[in-house]
């Protein structure tokens, strides 16, 4: 590989992308609009019900009067730590441990405060308070890693897959074949160009929407950057596989849609895969977007480190390697 030829293709592809104002604007506006739309649509309080988690490891001798209060939903929980996290995230307004006579509320939750007053009024002095803190997770906090990942997927698949097919169809690849440029130099330049463009757009959208929405980000920004970069590489490589031989833009468009639509709905971008059929859950693991979304979400919402999401990173790295190998093996100029 000769760096000069790689850089020549790389920089001319960048110019093409940056000068195509309408496409550039769309690449940035599209995710911003979706994020803003969700933030607006889910901004109201969705449930008026009070939710109290109740740990029932041992049945208490007397049932507290509190449990008979109306308009409170009592949810049995078995695992203490998971339930405390839910209180931190405002998914539970209160957690009650009947056996140990303890309760947890989130100091920043108004509902927690009301429930505390109710509890004191009905079962005065019986329970000791365990305060936790933590901001509530809005749907927009939960969905934003997925939206960023999904936008990345479209940009990667279509920006590489579709563009290389267009180059092949209009004869540009034939012209390059007649020069000393090797397929590896050409493909590496396409991947590199798309990678930095995707990362630049994602960082811009992230910063831009965060200014307005101030979403939850507990993990390290560097870790998130690494996850997004690796995810982008895997999706770009997938686009390369589609573009390796396809000569018709229609066929390429069809194949890319065939890949992107199932990923969009089955990778847990919009809704959690917790409750879906186990088979579907397994199927989702073959999509790079699933690993990208879950890893990014774990970093942003749970503050996970790279070690915690190592399985996702390994899957993304393995997929990238596999797709790159297949893509360059199958690649033909014409």
């Amino acid at each position: 590989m000769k760096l000069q030829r790689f850089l020549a293709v790389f920089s001319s592809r960048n110019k093409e992308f940056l000068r195509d104002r309408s496409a550039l604007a769309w690449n940035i506006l599209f995710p911003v609009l979706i994020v803003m739309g969700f933030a607006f649509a889910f901004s109201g309080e969705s449930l008026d019900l009070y939710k109290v988690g109740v740990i029932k490891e041992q049945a208490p001798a007397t049932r507290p009067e509190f449990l008979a209060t109306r308009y409170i939903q009592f949810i049995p929980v078995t695992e203490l730590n998971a339930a405390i996290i839910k209180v931190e995230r405002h998914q539970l307004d209160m957690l009650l441990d009947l056996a140990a006579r303890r309760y947890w509320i989130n100091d920043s939750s108004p509902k927690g405060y009301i429930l505390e007053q109710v509890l004191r009024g009905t079962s005065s002095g019986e329970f000791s308070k365990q305060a936790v803190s933590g901001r509530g997770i809005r749907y927009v906090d939960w969905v934003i890693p997925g939206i960023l990942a999904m936008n990345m997927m479209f940009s990667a698949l279509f920006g590489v897959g579709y563009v290389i097919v267009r180059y092949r169809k209009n004869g540009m690849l034939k012209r390059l074949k007649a020069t000393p440029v090797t397929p590896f130099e050409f493909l590496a330049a396409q991947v590199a160009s798309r990678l930095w463009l995707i990362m630049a757009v994602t960082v811009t959208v992230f910063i831009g929407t965060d200014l307005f929405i101030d979403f939850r980000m507990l993990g390290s920004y560097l870790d998130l950057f690494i996850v997004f970069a690796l995810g982008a590489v895997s999706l770009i490589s997938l686009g390369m596989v589609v573009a390796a031989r396809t000569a018709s833009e229609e066929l390429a468009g069809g194949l890319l849609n065939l890949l992107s639509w199932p990923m969009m709905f089955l990778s847990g971008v919009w809704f959690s895969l917790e409750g879906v059929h186990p088979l579907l859950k397994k199927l989702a693991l073959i999509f790079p977007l699933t690993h990208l979304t879950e890893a990014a979400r774990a970093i942003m919402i749970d503050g996970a480190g790279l070690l915690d999401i190592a399985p996702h990173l390994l899957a993304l790295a393995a997929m990238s390697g596999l797709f790159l190998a297949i893509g360059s093996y199958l690649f033909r100029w014409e």
Partner: protein
Amino acid sequence: MATLLEVKDLVKHFRGVRAVDGVSFTIAKGICFGLLGPNGAGKTTTVEMLEGIKAPTRGEILYKGEPLGPRFRHEAGIMFQSTALQDFITVGETLELFQRFYSKCRPLPGIIESCSLQGFLDRDTRKLSGGQRQRLLLAIALVNDPEVLFLDEPTTGLDPQARRNFWELVQTIKALGKTIILTTHYMEEAYNLCDEIAIMDHGKIIAQGTPKALLTEHFDDVVLQLPREEFPAGRDHLPMTIVHSRNAVEILTNDVNATIQQLLALGVSLAHLQIRPRTLEDLFLELTGRELRS
């Protein structure tokens, strides 16, 4: 003269069709070699195999005695029949892009001047006229100061003025000692530019040599042209070969004086008489029984 390219028994099949059917020739260094023939004769397929773009089904191509390889790609300049250039970059940037692909380059200002690109260097390549675009594609083919230059139907679709300008440009490149391989279906173009030609039809070479030698080999006559309306009807029994072409009557003769006297004796007006030598177009018709552009 040293041989630059050697082609031995080249065959190319496309889904059962023999597009090129056993073609052999050699091209000496420094000449302009023309591949002529009608559309679909196999010219472009042949030349794309020479360029290393298509792999032959059978046969051998040697450049400087070696099979085509990286050396060839560095030393060849190629102008395809149609090439899309990258969108959103200018003429100047396109030239720089291609120049960075090669280790040995000719300075751009010289190329820009000889191809007359000065006026539109900053223009987007999508906004060029036909002639400007062809000059840019030629300039791209010249960025690596090639030893051998391939021009595949370079003037197809150009107006007559742009075509003549392009011919002049090719003549100046020829003067630099470059080897040129040209395909065309314009016989005039081949006659003006080529030192040697091979005429192709149905994937085979049916005649090869210098244009002059080919003409003298096949013809010893000239053509007398008269407007159709000045030629008396019902004279088909005249002792001369008469060819009716579209607007004129053409008489083939190897004794102009005698024919003119015969025509005068018949009372034919010679006011609009034209005498022309035989052309490559006639040669093609003679060899195949078909007109080149039919």
